[in-house]
């Protein structure tokens, strides 16, 4: 049965198509494993066997009728940020601890349409604000490689679920690194596509202009299959892009001869720990062996990405989270006086400290007299950061570096120091500010045998190329196949 949990999506799909196993059986196996192991990891907030199995049975009918697609019948763990009809959808917050969504997110609809099974809702930092999964109202998620360590965040539950083989694959969302950073810390693969490719409809907003959904899985090949389902125009999202449908698996087998990998000198400067640097160097050597060449590029505004991010993301968040007021859904304070008191108590009690902190930052930077100095300034710098990448891509095809400056830190180690926590997004947030696609793949281990992730940033809409680059590496290495259990 170990092979089942370690199987690739392609292998599972073949087994389902060949009637070696039914979706109901497959789903049941994963549900059993979740029941057994989740108490240790806390990767899932909600598991609903009845609803999952109903979908599995429907998938079995599709499979029997020969109308199956690549992911039909395959259980997928959904980040609890995606609204799913009839499912508790908490976004990791007390505020939504009683919110059973009456509608499906665009991403959920696409998985439903292809006949995938919703395996459960994964734990996450509250409203996706965090880099360690410690801000969740539903408690800390443990890193399957080392239970003392955080899994990263905000898609920590998703990364943990895939790494611990509690799910064949998962969805995540990435506003400043929330797919890539936990993927790196848990030793799995994850990709944030170009902004606008995956529908944000029904994906609970953190920072609208930065949020982007994406898949998290064991390998690049799995990611390609997942992207084929997740990417697509959604008329309900004004920022969703109308583009021709792509098959993200199409370039997986291409050789990497002549590929120019840009290495930003700012990413290889101080800040990166020795163990991470070693793993990254080894990975780059592997790429050189695969025929790629590396060139030094420069992204001079790199140090600005964190301050810019911590103006823009909280500003948008402060407004996006205003709808949580205890009037129409969600948590309402137990006791209160007048209307204003009801609002203030509801929001004080319903939000955790990190969310409140960011709402306050955002409120402040938008407030009268500060808007130009902070918000507009940050938007101008955002353009300079984007320009850095445009310039860099004149000299290279793809950019690589570490996903995170260090391997996973311990639970509690940074939770009292928001700035240290924020700095763990140093390499990842630029991709959100620019909208560029970026991914992380496992490239070995650092101190305490904790995983290291290689960050691959592509040019706009070059996901197929990035997956090819990642896949070729995974053809000659087996980091992605290693499991902590």
């Amino acid at each position, binding site marked *: 049965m170990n092979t089942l949990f370690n199987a690739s999506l392609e292998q599972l799909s073949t087994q389902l198509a060949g009637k070696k196993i039914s979706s109901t059986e497959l789903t049941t196996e994963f549900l059993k494993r979740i029941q057994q192991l989740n108490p240790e990891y806390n990767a899932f907030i909600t598991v609903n066997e009845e609803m999952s199995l109903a979908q599995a049975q429907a998938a079995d009918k599709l499979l029997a009728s020969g109308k199956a697609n690549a992911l039909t019948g395959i259980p997928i763990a959904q980040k609890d940020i*995606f*609204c799913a009809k009839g499912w508790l*959808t908490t*976004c990791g917050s007390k505020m*939504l601890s009683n*919110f059973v*969504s*009456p*509608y499906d*997110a665009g991403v959920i609809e696409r998985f439903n349409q292809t006949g995938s099974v919703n395996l459960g809702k994964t734990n996450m930092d509250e409203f996706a604000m965090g880099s360690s999964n410690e801000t969740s109202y539903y408690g800390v998620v443990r890193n399957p490689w080392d239970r003392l360590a955080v899994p990263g965040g905000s898609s920590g539950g998703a990364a943990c679920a895939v790494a611990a083989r509690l799910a064949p694959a998962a969805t995540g969302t990435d506003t400043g690194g929330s797919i890539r950073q936990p993927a790196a810390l848990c030793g799995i693969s994850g990709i944030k596509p170009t902004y606008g490719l995956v529908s*944000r*409809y*029904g*994906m*609970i*907003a953190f*920072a*609208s*202009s930065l949020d982007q959904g994406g898949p998290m899985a064991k390998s690049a090949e799995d990611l390609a299959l997942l992207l084929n389902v997740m990417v697509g125009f959604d*008329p*309900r*999202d*004004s*920022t969703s892009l109308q583009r021709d449908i792509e098959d993200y698996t199409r370039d997986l087998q291409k050789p990497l001869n002549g590929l120019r990998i840009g290495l930003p000198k700012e990413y290889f400067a101080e800040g990166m720990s020795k163990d991470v640097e070693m793993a990254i160097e080894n990975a780059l050597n592997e790429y050189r062996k695969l025929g790629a060449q590396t060139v030094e590029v420069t992204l001079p505004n790199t140090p600005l990405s964190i301050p810019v991010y911590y103006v823009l993301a909280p*500003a*948008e968040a*402060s*407004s996006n*989270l*205003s*709808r*949580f*007021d205890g*009037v*129409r*859904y*969600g948590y309402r304070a137990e006791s209160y006086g007048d*209307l204003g008191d009801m*609002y203030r108590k509801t929001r004080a009690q319903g939000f955790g400290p990190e969310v409140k902190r960011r709402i306050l930052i955002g*409120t402040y930077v*938008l*407030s*009268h007299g500060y*808007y130009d100095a902070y*918000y507009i300034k940050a938007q101008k710098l955002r353009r300079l950061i984007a320009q850095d990448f445009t310039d860099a891509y004149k000299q290279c095809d793809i950019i690589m570096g570490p996903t995170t400056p260090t391997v996973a830190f311990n639970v509690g180690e940074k939770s009292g120091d928001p700035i240290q926590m924020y700095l763990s997004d140093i390499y990842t947030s630029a991709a959100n500010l620019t909208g560029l696609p970026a991914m992380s793949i496992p490239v070995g281990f650092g101190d305490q045998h904790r995983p290291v992730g290689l960050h691959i940033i592509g040019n706009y809409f070059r996901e197929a190329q990035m997956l090819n680059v990642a896949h070729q590496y995974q053809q000659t290495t087996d980091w992605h196949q290693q499991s902590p259990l």
Partner: protein
Amino acid sequence: MQWEIVIGLEVHTQLSTQSKIFSGASTAYGAAPNTQACVIDLALPGVLPVLNKGAVERAIKFGLSVGAKINSPSIFARKNYFYPDLPKGYQISQYELPVVQGGSIKIEVDGIEKTIRLTRAHLEEDAGKSLHEDFHGMSGIDLNRAGTPLLEIVSEPDLRSSAEAVAYAKTLHSLVRWIGICDGNMQEGSFRCDANVSVRPRGQEKFGTRCEIKNLNSFRFLEKAIDYEARRQIDILEDGGAIRQETRLYDANKDETRTMRTKEDANDYRYFPDPDLLPLEISPDWIGHIASSLPELPQVREDRYVSELSLTAYDAAVLTSSREIADYFEATVRVLPTQAKLCANWIMGDVMAQLNKEGIEIPACPIQPDSLAALLTRISDGTISGKAAKAVFESLWHGELNKDVDAIIAAKGLKQISDDGAIDKIIDQVLQANPQQVADYRNGKEKAFNSLVGQIMKATQGKANPAQVHAILKKKLEQ
């Protein structure tokens, strides 16, 4: 001291779209609470706005009809504040770069024409409603109206009296209905005014401190609120006091304004561009297409009625006070191009009086323009007298004889006697029967003429053409 009142108006017009500005929910008025509030209007977690083309089209129409600039791109911004009727905790509006910039409107007060400049008009969403009936000490929220498209039209402080403000509001009200972007129903809140009022010593250039009066939902309240507010400010200043900038509410029952919130506790709205919406580009092609579909504007039509149809300025203004009336007149005069004055008189007289009496609007008038034109044709060609025409009008109104004018005239025997021979004969009979009056007339008693006319009309049961009677009688008496 002589005081000058300075007024600027902000008018919220509800745009007459089928669906809401950012969702596909219906905008129909009067539905059961919250049955037209979809997940987007309710601001459920994760939902997103998509802009309604119909709302943008209406904003462009307005801009073109006031000679404004259509901004492209224009930007949607979030206005952040908490209120239970505002589900997202922010209103999607426009701040910098509204869709419509500038433009102007001509008004007329006491025969004096004045141009009022517009600052801007921007698209935004309406809020829901708080119902203040008592639910065990709580309020009920109905979000059906949340997300209804509004065009907020902001004027420069160019108005100098409540009469000018009302004239401006009425002109605007007529215009938005004329171009078909708003139903103008003030009872249902489709056209709502806020007034910024200040006073200054006459001759002073600097504006005084202004107060904004909210909640002015009729022209009468607008007038009364401005008058009250100006008086209040003047009284304070004359007592040596100072005006405090604030938002005030007009209480129609007490006919007074009272403080709603002061500048100190005014909201810090934290406007910023809505990241869920992209810059709105409006192509010259689209603007051109809308421009070509715009109806002839009221001002243009009013001028044309004077210059081409030789109507008086008063008649032209009344007939263009609404698109429906003007179109009714237009359809009537099309049949009788040389009788514009006759058409105008009948529409402004009998038609309007009867509509008023029955409390209906002109689109529901039982006499359609073609029927009225048929009736007026019979007056102008001498078939019936003006008096007889009133009877035909009655019949038409009540739908008699399939509203066939000639059939009604025939059935009622209202046809005028215009045959010279027939009239001649009757006159001869009357003259013979009244030798004394004939003699009186010939002796210079002019009155006797009218008496003879009366007798002739009586003898024809009023059907003789009076003009002919006059001419023939005169000729005979002077023989």
